């Protein structure tokens, strides 16, 4: 599996690096490896990714 080309987006929530596959299509879901917030790929222009945060259901704390 050759390393897919990725574009690194900065997570709006925590400044973490999100690796978005460069062939990602708008609407695709990505999540930040650090804070876990999920985003929708809004658009890709060259090597810049625009992310739209989406509301996930309440955190399951398990307690």
């Amino acid at each position, binding site marked *: 599996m050759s390393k897919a080309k990725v574009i690194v987006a900065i997570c709006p*929530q*925590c*400044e973490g690096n999100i690796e978005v596959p460069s062939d990602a299509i708008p609407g695709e879901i990505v*999540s930040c490896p*650090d*804070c876990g*917030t999920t985003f929708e790929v809004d658009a890709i222009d060259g090597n810049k990714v625009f992310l739209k945060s989406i509301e*996930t259901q309440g*955190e399951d704390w398990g307690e």
Partner: protein
Amino acid sequence: MVNVGIVGASGYTGGELLRLLLSRQDISVTLATSRKHNGEYVFRVHPNLKSITTLKFSNPSIDNIAKSCDYVFLAVPHGSAVNLVPKLLEVGLKVIDLSADFRLKDPKDYEKWYKFKHPFPDLLEKAVYGLPELHFDEIRKASLVANPGCTSTATILSLAPLVKNNLIDAERIIVDVKIGSSGVGGSPSIFSHHPERTYVVRPYQVASHRHTAEVEQELKRISNKNVKIGMTPHAVDIVRGILSTSYGFTNEKIQLSQIWHAYREAYNGRKFIRLVKDVQGLEKLPDPKYVVGSNFCDIGFELDERFGRIIAFSAIDNLMKGASGQAVQNLNIMLGLDETTGLLIPSLHPV
């Protein structure tokens, strides 16, 4: 090959030093001393080392140590190795002291917190506080490193970025610590007697924990502010692990991103710090369960805007990042090696 000795190798921290160092190809453990177990195989006291080594405990004597070691770890209770240190330094040895004997800079603090009149106040200046994430360069050049206390390690690492960036009121920090049984050392007492120690959530030294002194000292040094923390430990029903929960009152309106930024900037590239504030997965906030046996310090936080406070969590294994793991991290730095050498070990899960 670097020759390393461990003075006081029969305790839990001594045992961890043996576990970590015996698997190193570049290091030879030439000495593991214990007055009580002199002549005994180390695995009789540390069964996990059976068939890993046939090393025996030997007697701690200056020339014995000077003859066989380049570096020596002192893993003995406070006040017992302090007289050894000057002699060891004199014969050119490098010393990593796991006790509190050289952590504080101001001799008056020893009288205040440890009721102890320090016999070598001049050495306090020379000693380097062995917290790599704050004093890396000094440790690199040090010949005497004072390994930090376990609760202080966790508490300093979670508070330093907040105090340094003036995100909280440095003179009113509440620290509520939960700590496992191996953090109190190996000598049995009624309080460590299984029927009494199991199932507890037991507050102790609630307003006088001695690690307070080094936490205030280090936070002052990094922020040049007056710092006052109130630390209250609780013994909980685990063996290894510390969770330090710190409460800082926010000075003015703070954004969550400011906190992320403060931690990222402080610990960028520091392999043993993991930022854990994750809405997904098993570990959403730091929890000692997920660092047992590793040298990681998991740091997380939450901003409570309604109340006006930042809650900072920090989880470590008190025997690893809180003691022996950090001591080996310091040795790596003093040897000019990558600090993670032999230490990037994933913890056991589940444990």
